């Protein structure tokens, strides 16, 4: 693995495509191409630099020589993690995850609390016929702002007549962010635990609520023999097939922000838009940088859990400013990380951020 990495790095032709694609390079002291260059020569790299990467994946997707710069970052981070040279908050998040299986360190026993407050009964996945699992993300399970998302989606799927179950307190972090922070060992542990549980209950299908979890299950768990989707794909299907009908209008101008892990990294651009287009009265707007060129919200790659040192105009602010300028009333997205990063500047500018399910529950 290491060996492969170094030949890959040596193959870099210093074309700059990665830097031109990177949402961090240029506006922060970070420069992804330069890090690859330094790596070619095994030159010293300032220890704070690798932490800027948001793991948006743009560099890796576009590199003409397949150097996978974002993986180079993970490798650099691993070395730093090993030496304990990392932001304190991140260290804390890793420790929390090791213990409670979530970066916040909230009690694992409370992971399924969101479902308790629901007006519908959701079975444990083992009690379902379909063995279809609704998998929540750590943010959605614990963060008060995002806890509505799983309840919303559960209601929507239920309304669409879909059978599904949950794991409750047996669910644990998917490891997507942990791997990107550079803690390969912990990631492996998490994966093993999740795999074992799914195997135990014979899970056949995972509907991920967060694009990050979906990405991990789809691409990083090896072949599970389990169909993995993001919930927006399921809902879009339901609307198309007529099992779920939009009943009320939503008279607002809505601008859609593509999450990196849903959009560029996994090619799901249409499903969320299809849902929005199906809603009467809703005017769908687009950012200049949308779909493959969507601007990263800077929530990924561990950036959710700590603050970088430099001050600069955050991408979330850039996003919010554009939305306001374009006259949008709501920024819609389909990822809890994006909701969290966009919400602050949005509140400041008086514009609402809504996860797709939050619009949907209002209209079905």
């Amino acid at each position, binding site marked *: 693995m290491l060996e492969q990495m170094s030949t890959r790095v040596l193959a870099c032709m210093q074309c700059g495509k990665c830097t*031109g694609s990177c949402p961090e390079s240029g506006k922060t002291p970070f420069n992804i191409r330069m890090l690859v260059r330094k790596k070619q020569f095994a030159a010293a790299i300032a220890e704070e630099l690798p932490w800027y990467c948001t793991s948006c994946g743009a560099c890796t997707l576009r590199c003409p020589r397949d150097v996978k710069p974002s993986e180079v970052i993970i490798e650099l981070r691993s070395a730093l993690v090993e030496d304990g040279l990392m932001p304190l908050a991140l260290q804390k998040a890793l420790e929390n995850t090791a213990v409670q299986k979530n970066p916040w360190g909230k009690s694992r026993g409370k992971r399924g609390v969101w479902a308790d407050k629901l007006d519908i009964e959701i079975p444990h996945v083992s009690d379902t016929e379909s063995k279809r699992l609704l998998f929540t993300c750590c943010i959605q399970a614990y963060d008060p702002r995002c806890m509505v998302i799983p309840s919303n989606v559960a209601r929507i799927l239920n309304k669409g007549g879909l059978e599904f179950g949950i794991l409750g307190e047996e669910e644990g972090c998917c490891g997507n962010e942990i791997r990107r922070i550079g803690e390969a060992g912990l990631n492996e542990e998490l994966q093993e635990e999740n795999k074992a549980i799914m195997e135990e209950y014979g899970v056949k299908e995972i509907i991920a609520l967060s694009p990050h979890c979906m990405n991990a299950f789809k691409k990083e768990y090896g072949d599970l023999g389990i169909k993995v989707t993001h919930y927006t794909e399921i809902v879009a299907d339901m609307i198309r097939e007529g099992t779920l009908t939009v009943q009320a209008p939503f008279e607002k101008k809505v601008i859609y922000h593509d999450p990196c892990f849903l959009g560029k990294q996994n090619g799901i651009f249409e499903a969320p838009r299809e849902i929005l287009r199906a809603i009467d009265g809703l005017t769908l707007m687009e950012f200049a940088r949308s779909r493959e060129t969507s601007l990263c919200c800077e929530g990924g790659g561990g950036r959710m859990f700590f603050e970088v040192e430099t001050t600069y105009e955050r991408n979330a602010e850039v996003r919010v400013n554009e939305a306001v300028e374009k006259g949008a009333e709501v920024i819609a997205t389909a990822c809890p990380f994006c909701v969290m990063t966009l919400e602050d500047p949005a509140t400041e500018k008086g514009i609402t951020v809504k996860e797709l399910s939050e619009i949907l529950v209002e209209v079905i």
Partner: protein
Amino acid sequence: MKNVLVVGGGIGGITAALEIASCGVDVTMLEEGPSIGGRMIQLDKTFPTLDCSTCTLSPKMVEVALQKKINLLSWAKPVAIRKNGKGFTVTILKKSRYVDINKCNACGSCSPGCPVVMKSEFNMGTGPRKAIYIPFPQAIPNKASIDKRTDRPCKAACVDACPIHTNVLGYLKHISEGRFEDAYMLIRETNPFPSSCGRVCYAPCEGVCNRGQLDSPLAIRDLKRSAVDRFDLDTLEPPQVQKTERKVAIIGAGPAGLSCAHDLAMEGHDVTVFETLPEPGGMLRYAIPEYRLPKAELDKEIGYIRRMGVKIECGIEIGKNMDAATLKNDYEAIFVGTGAPQGIRLGVEGEDLSGIMDGLKFLRTVNKGESLERESLSSHSEREGVAQPALLVEGATRAPLIGNKVAVIGGGNTAVDCARTAKRLGSEEVTLIYRRTRQEMPAADEEVEALIHEGVKIEFLATPVRFNGSNGKVSTAECIRMELGEPDASGRRRPIEIKGSEFSVPVDTVITALGQATETDFLNPLGVKLRKNGTVEVDPFTCTTSVEGIFAGGDVTTGPAYVVDAIAAGKKAACFIIKFLKGEALVAESIDAKPEKLSEDEVKALSIWVAKADRIPMPEEEINQRVTNFREVALGYSAGEAMTEARRCLAGQIEGCIQCGECERRCEVRAVDYNMKDEIIDLDVDSIVLAPGFDLYDPTEKREYGYGTLEGVITGIEFERICSVTGPTGGDILLKGETPKRFFFIQCVGSRDRLSGARYCSRVCCMYTAKHASIVKDRIRDAEIYISYIDVRAYGKNYEEFYKSTQENGILYMRGIPGEVVQGKNGLLVRVEDMLSGEMREVEVDLVILATGVRPRKGTEELCNIMSIERDEYGFIKANSVAPSKTNVDGIFVCGMGSGPKDVPDTVASGGEAASRCMEYINQ
């Protein structure tokens, strides 16, 4: 005799073919497209010398055409091959060009008329071409081709039903794509009265429209009007034609006479039209009411004929103010188009009472505005893009012309026009009295419909038997009921009076509209033979009368008919008068084709892939709005409605030529042949040289660069066309009609890139980008130009120097290729790291040009498969490393881009090499 096959007519193939032919060997050259020249002929200039590409290549292409040893087959490619001794037998597919290459003289008359607009391959889609086209002026062979892909799924019965064979499908095609002006001009080709016909034509085309067999016929007439509505005829300059000084007189300024005059004037003849009434137009002016045909529209059409130099002398009645014999002496030919202006009497008691008038006279009076007082006519309701119809003749009112209780006798269009006019003049009760039933009414259905809507009562199965009056003025019409008996000569059931069913209708005005007769006595002195009913006897195919030099057409020969029939007769007469003046024999050429129906199977097949869509109704003035005035009832389609309606035409459902016949009609040497068939030819050859050339990477999949989604992102080869004098802008670098000032060139798009499957360097992009930048700098001195690169490959002599001079010219080379191109506020934003300074930049520009990489030409795989030729991992033809023109098959050689990226000098060198190895092989 030895024979070599060269496949591909680019610079590689041309070089090889000329070399081999110069050794005295026969060459058959196959070019898949319409012309040789390959990619190089698409280039504006060539690096590193910046010589004009066409100037360099064109002489060589001409040499190919002149070289007797080279047999050039265009639209041809090999489809099978067999080893034959040392040589090969090749099966060649020669696609039909639907134009006879031996007849076509590249005059170019055909293309402008073609209604099918497609993307020009030569211009890489940056400009249009027609379905019939010559790809570029220097094409070899310089012959037109028709891009006919399928047979038209419609019989185009419309065209055959139209007396003047209007190119209906052609103008519908134009309208369906929003080209209203082109549609108008196409209609004008055969019709000098598009506006009049677009309003009042009885549209025999619609009756037979094949789409009617599926759902409903096209609104052919209303669509004609939609084109008229969007074109101002007053702005059209008549064509300059050579005057002949040959004098022709035309009697009668109706549609027949004026159409005849129009076509004669087109030929340069000196035409004078004599008209009895104060203004020209005939029934168009004096019978058809304003609310159906605004006179201002008619004036424009006649005005144009006047502007063509036709003299129209009104107020002259031949036989009264001027005698026919003088006319015969003063003019070389005469056309009689006096129509059928006489009313027919009912022949009942009391018909001469005051208050009873003839329908034609009534309409004429109203249209002339005689004894009518002015009434304010508010302006027509505004609709987008619709020309404002003119107001009526001076005023309109009932007194003293017409009373309050009006009876109109008759069931034809004239009767309906009279009744609707009477209603508009304010008569409270208007009753139409007709002998038969609604079914037998000769008036157009929609007219009768409108009549009923507007509140006119109809007494069917009734006829007046006597009019009673007091003080000499009519007061009642005594009528009798009828019933229908056996069919009469006209096929309609004969009405029979029912004894004792008399009833009386109180009236103060009676208008009779029973039919029309001709007035032809004035022709007697000339000895023109008349029929018993007073019509002029003519040969229907040539419009000749019994007297040489005298022609006739329209209602005067047929009795009352329709406008478009009159136009057709006038045009036909013009055609034969032209022949007559030339002293040619007057024999009719073609017998008109009959409108054909689709077979049941065809209808079934069509209904599978053509979605049902009903005709869009013509928007009309509201009923209560219309009966108070003479404003036009039909409001005209909006542009969108017209386009949607026109898209229903079955002919327009196919790609490419719709076989409308326009090019065939225009081609003087009759080179067009729609029935030409593809040919399969077997050919024995001793050796083969493959020069299939290359295609370019399609950057659409690199979504981050926005090609195909962002305006202003184009490829290098497209830019080449935009710069070229033979390109769509004649060499002006334009973006949306304006000169762009800020340019960003991105190199290596789809080269050196695992993602696009081409890990190789395309070898020409660095230099062609430098060339493009130099061209921009040369044409737009103040342009801001960036070139982003990974490294510049300027190998060998003259190239590095060219690179340097490009830099010195003020072009900014930036190391680092952009991550993304996105839409900014005032242009495109290119996000790029300027690596040599380590700075990230967002450069705002107008145009982004992607230097897309080279790919094997589409079809190379097929070509190699039939010949068992090996290709490399990228699909290029695999060449021997020490004899680079040798393939794995003995006797088959390769040159040019077909075996991998090469620039022009290298291609020429490889062509030479292939030629010499080929010569070596065949001489062994």
